[in-house]
C-alpha cells in the first residue's frame, strides 16, 4: 500500500513535461546540434500530443491495476503473521488480528483517494477498484476468520448465556437438624 502511494505521488513529481513548448528557436540559447532538423520534430504536433496522452492513460491504467493488486501482497503477509501468532488468545495474536481487520477497513474507506491520481476520462478505474475492494474484503474475511479461530466471535449459544443469572425460585425452604 505504502509502495503504491509512493509510486503514484513521486510519479507526479518527476513527470517529464512532454508538452514543453521549446519549439521556438529564439527561446533557446543553445543552437540545435548539427544535423538536427527541427522541422522533423515539429511535424504533426497534434499526433504527438495524442500519443503522449495515450501513453499517460496507459500508464495510469497500468498503475491503477498495480495499486489495486497491492493488497494481495498484504494478504499474504497477514496470512503469514497469523500463522505465526497461533490460535491461542494472547496479546500478540489479538494485535495481529485487529490490525488485519483494521487495515482492510481503512483501505476500503479510502478507495476514492487511492485511485484519485489515476482518474482520467479515458481510464476505466472500475476494474481496479473492484479488484482492490475484493482483495481488501478478502483481507477482512481473513481477519474475521482469524477472530473466529481465536474464538472471539459470539456465534455460539454459549456466548450469550454465559452471563445469565440463575433463575429465581418461587418456593423457599429452610430448616435442618433441630437445635
Amino acid at each position, binding site marked *: 500500500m505504502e509502495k503504491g502511494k509512493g509510486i503514484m505521488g513521486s510519479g507526479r513529481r518527476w513527470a517529464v513535461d512532454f508538452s514543453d513548448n521549446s519549439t521556438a528557436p529564439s527561446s533557446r540559447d543553445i543552437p540545435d546540434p548539427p544535423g538536427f532538423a527541427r522541422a522533423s520534430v515539429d511535424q504533426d504536433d497534434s499526433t504527438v500530443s495524442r500519443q503522449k496522452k495515450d501513453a499517460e492513460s496507459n500508464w495510469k491504467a497500468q498503475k491503477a491495476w498495480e495499486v489495486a493488486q497491492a493488497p494481495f501482497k498484504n494478504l499474504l503477509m497477514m496470512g503469514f503473521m497469523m500463522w*505465526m501468532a497461533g490460535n*491461542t488468545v*494472547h*496479546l*500478540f495474536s489479538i494485535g495481529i488480528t485487529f490490525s488485519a481487520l483494521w487495515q482492510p477497513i481503512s483501505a476500503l474507506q479510502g478507495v476514492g483517494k487511492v485511485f484519485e491520481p489515476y482518474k482520467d476520462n479515458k481510464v476505466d478505474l472500475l476494474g481496479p477498484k473492484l479488484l482492490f475492494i475484493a482483495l481488501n474484503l478478502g483481507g477482512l474475511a481473513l481477519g474475521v476468520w482469524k477472530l473466529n479461530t481465536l*474464538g472471539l466471535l459470539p*456465534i*455460539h*449459544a*454459549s*456466548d*450469550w*448465556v*454465559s*452471563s*445469565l*443469572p*440463575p*433463575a*429465581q*425460585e*418461587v*418456593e*423457599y*425452604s*429452610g*430448616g*435442618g*437438624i*433441630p*437445635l
Partner: protein
Amino acid sequence: MAIRSFLILFILFFFSSLNPILSLYEDQVGLVDWHQQYLGKVKQAVFHTHKTGRKRVVVSTEENVVASLDLRQGEIFWRHVLGSNDVIDGIDIALGKCHYPFIRRKYFESMESSRWADGVGIFSSGSKALKIITNLKIEKDNIVIIFSNGRLNAVSCIDGEVLWEKDFEGESLKVQQVIQPPGSNLIYVVGFVSSSLFEMYQINALNGELLKHESAAFSGGFLGEVSPVFSETVVALDSTGLILLTISFQNGKISFHQTPISNLVKDSFGPAKIITSSVTGIFAIKMNAVTIVIRVKDESKLEVVEKTNHETSISDALSISEGQQAFALVQHASHEIHLRVKLAHNWDDNLLKESVKMDQHRGLVHKVYINNYIRTDKSYGFRALIVMEDHSLLLLQQGEIVWSREDGLASIIDVTTSELPVERDGVSVAKVEHNLFEWLKGHMLKLKGTLMLASPQDVAAIQSMRLKNSEKSKMTRDHNGFRKLLIVLTRAGKLFALHTGDGHIVWSYLLQSLQKSKVCQHPIGLNLYKWQVPHHHAMDENPSVLVIGKCGPSSDAPGALSFVDTYTGKELSSLSLVHSVAQVIPLPYTDSTEQCLHLLIDADKHAHLYPKTPEAISTFEREFSNIYWYSVEDDNGIIKGHALRGKCTGEVADEVCFDTRELWSIVFPSESEKIIAIVTRKLNEVVHTQAKVIADQEVMYKYISRNLLFVATVALKGSVEIGSVTPEESWLVAYLIDTVTGRILHRVTHHGSQGPVHAVFSENWVVYHYFNLKAHRYEMSVIEIYDQSRADNKDVWKLVLGKHNLTSPISLYSRPDVITKSQSYFFTHSVKAIAVTSTTKGITSKQLLIGTIGDQVLALDKRFLDPRRTVNPTQAEKEEGIIPLTDSLPIIPQSYVTHALRVEGLRGIITVPAKLESTTLVFAHGVDLFFTQLAPSRTYDSLTDDFNYALLLITIVALLAAIFVTWTLSERKELQENWR
C-alpha cells in the same frame, strides 16, 4: 527467525507472569493475616513454687489445653492442645525429680502407658480422676498417687512406672475423697456404698498395703459430695439437704454428728449444696443465692462465720509456712470484687484485703487460685488468678489487674460479620492521616527497597511500616470491603466484635439472656443471625445481630432472643420466649427498616414470625404459600417436609404464630442407614451465572437451587470408629434432596466406605470427604448437578434477542430433569472442616478450604475436583482448564493458607466476601483464631498494597523529562538540517 524467537520469549514472559502464585513471601506474613492464641476456660491452675524460681502458672482448661503462662505478662510460655477425647481431669506439679504437671485424662479403660515429652508427662489412665498426691518419697524417687476410675495408682516420677495399684471398682464403692494427712505416709479413701453406707479405707502410701477398712451406716442417706475439713474428718449432707453431717474416722472409728442447718442460720433457704474446699476446718454451703461459710471447731461443733448474698468463691488452701494454711475468698459486688486472703485457723484476721474494679462484662468470679511471694520486707504477698464467668483469666496483685486474657474466645459457637460505619464527619477515625512528609519518607524508603539500595535497618523499617499500617485497623468502612467486624458468640454467652484488620476486640458484651438466672438455670447460646443489615434507604440505622439461645439442653426448653447493635455493642432488647426454638429459618425478606424476617419453629412444629410487626406479617402473608421448612431427625433417620397452614389455633393463638402441616417424609431404613451429615448451600452465596461453558463452545446449565440438601448416611455398623468394621459391612450413601418437594434428585452409594463425612455445598456442586475402607485411604468425592431440561436452548438468535425463559422464575414443582456428574479422588489428610471461598459476585473461581487434622487450613483449587477430568484431556479441554486426572488430590505445601501457623483445635472456617470481587476473607476458629484474605485467582482487580506509587510517579516524571529533552534536541537538529 529472530522475530519468531523473540515472539516465543515474549509469550513465555507473558505466561510466566500469569501463572498463579498461591504462596506468600516471608515478608508478607502478618500483612493481611493475624493469629491469636487462647486457652479456654481454666479448670485448674497450679503455680510454680517460688523455690523453683520460675514465675509461671500451669493451667488446664475445658478446651483440653495444658499451658504454662508467664505471671508477669500472661503470655503463653508453652502450650499443649490435646484432642477432644482427651479430657484433662486435673494437673499437679510433682516436686523433686519431675517438675512437670501431671495430666490425668480420660483415655482407655485401663492404665495404659506414660509418656515423657516436651516438658509434660502425660499419664494415661481411666476416666474421671479425683486426686493427685505428689509429695511422697521412696528413697530418692518421688511417687505420684493418682486416683481415677475407682482405682488408686502409685506412679514413679522417674520413668512413669506403676509401683502399686489398688482397685476399688469391685467393691461398689463410690469414692468421694482421697485424703492424705500432711506429713504421714497414710492415705484415706472415703466413699459411699449404695446411699447410706459410709466406708473408709486406710492405705499405706508407700506400698499400697491396706491397713484398715471400716464402714458405718447412716439411715438418713447422703447427698452429693463430701468436703474434707480435717485429715480425719469430712462433712457431708443428708439426703434431704437440710442436715449437715460431720463424719469423723479417727483411729479407724467412724462417728456421725448431725447438725441441722436451721440451727446455724435462722431462716431457711431450701436444700443446701456443699462447696468442697481443701481448707482445713472451713467449708461452705450454698443455698439458692446465699453462701454460708462454716468453720468446724473441734470434731463436731459447727459455727457460721459468714453469710452473704454475694457470689463467693473460695480458693484451695495454700500452705505458706509450717502448719499454716492460707486461702482466698473472692466476693462479687456489682462493680467491684473483694479479695480477702485469710489463714485457715484464724478467720477473724485478713492477711490481705483488696478491692478491684471489675468490668461488668466479665460476669461473676467462677474460680480463684492464690499464690504467695515474699516481698522485699520479708512479709508475704499474695497474687490471685481468677477465672470469670465469661471464661476470661485475670491476675490480681496489689489491688490491680496485672493482666487479663480473653480466653472465652477459645470456644466460639457461631460467627457472623457486620460492616463498619461509613466514614463521615462525626465518626471517630483512628489517627491515620499523617503528614505529607511522613508519606514521602515512607515511599522513599520503599523506593530504596525496590531499587535494592536499602540497608538492613531500612529493610526492617519498611517491614515494620507495612505491618503497622494503621490503615487496616481503622474503624470505618473501606473501599475494598476488607475492614469488617467479626461478631462471635462464645460458649460463655459473650459476644465479641473483632476487627478484621488486626483482630483487636472492638467491644464485648456479656449477654444477660444467656446468664444463669432463676428462670433459666442452664442457658445455652445457639446461633447468631444478621438481624438488620442497613443499606440503601435505611443507611442511618445501625446494623444489629440476633442471638438465639435456650434454657437447658432439652428440646422443649424455652428460647431467648437478644438483639445487639454491632456498632456500639449494646443490647437493643431481649426477649425470653414462651415457646421453644427447634429451628431458625432466616427468610429472604426484609421490612422497610431492613430488619430480616426470621421464622422460629418450636418443638410443637408451630412457626413464629419475628419481628412481630404488622408490616412483617403482611410481607410474610404475601409469601405465605411459598414458604416451606424441613426437619431432619437424625436419631430416627427421618427427613420431613412441612408447609404453613394458617394462624395458630388453641391456647398458643397469636398474631405471629402459624400452624404447619406435614407434606412429605423420607424414611431411611433404620437398620442400614444412619444420617451422619447434612449440608446445604450458604444462604448468602451469590452465583454469577447459570451456564457452564465447556470445551467446543458447548453449554451445560447448572442446576442451581437454594432448596437442595445433601444428606450422607452410613450403615449402622459403619457409624463407629474407623477400623472396627470390614469393608463388606459398611457403606456410605449420598443423597441430593429437594427440600420443597421432597424429591430425591440423586443417590449414590459408596461401598466399603464410612464416615465421618465432612461436606461443603456451593453453586451446583457438593464435595464430601469420607474414609474408604477398601483402599485404606481417605477419599473426596464431588457431585455436580446439571439441569438437562434447559440444555435445548441452543438457538443463538433467540438468545441474542432475549426470547428465552432461562431467567424467569421457576417453581420446584415443575419436574426438573437433572443429570449429575461425579468423581472421587484419594486425599491424604483426615479433615476437621471444609469450607469454600465466596466472593461478592461469584465470578472468581472457587477454592476449597480444608481444615486438616494438623490444624492447618489448606486451599485446594476447585478445578482439582472437577468431575470432567480425564486422564488424557483433549486440546480443547486443556484450554478450558481441565487438569489431567490423577488418583489423588495434590497437596501443594505453598497452598497452606495458614502458612507456618496452626489453628489449634480447629472447629470452623468461615468465608466472607470482600467488596473487591477477587478477594474473600477467611476466618478460622478453634482454640486459636486465624484470619486472612485470599484471592483464589489472584488480585486481578487491584494493585497490591505494597505497590510503589513513588516509583510510578518518578517513572512518569522521568519519561516526561525524556520526552521534553528529546523533543528539543530533535527540533534543533531539524533546524540545522534545514540550514544546511
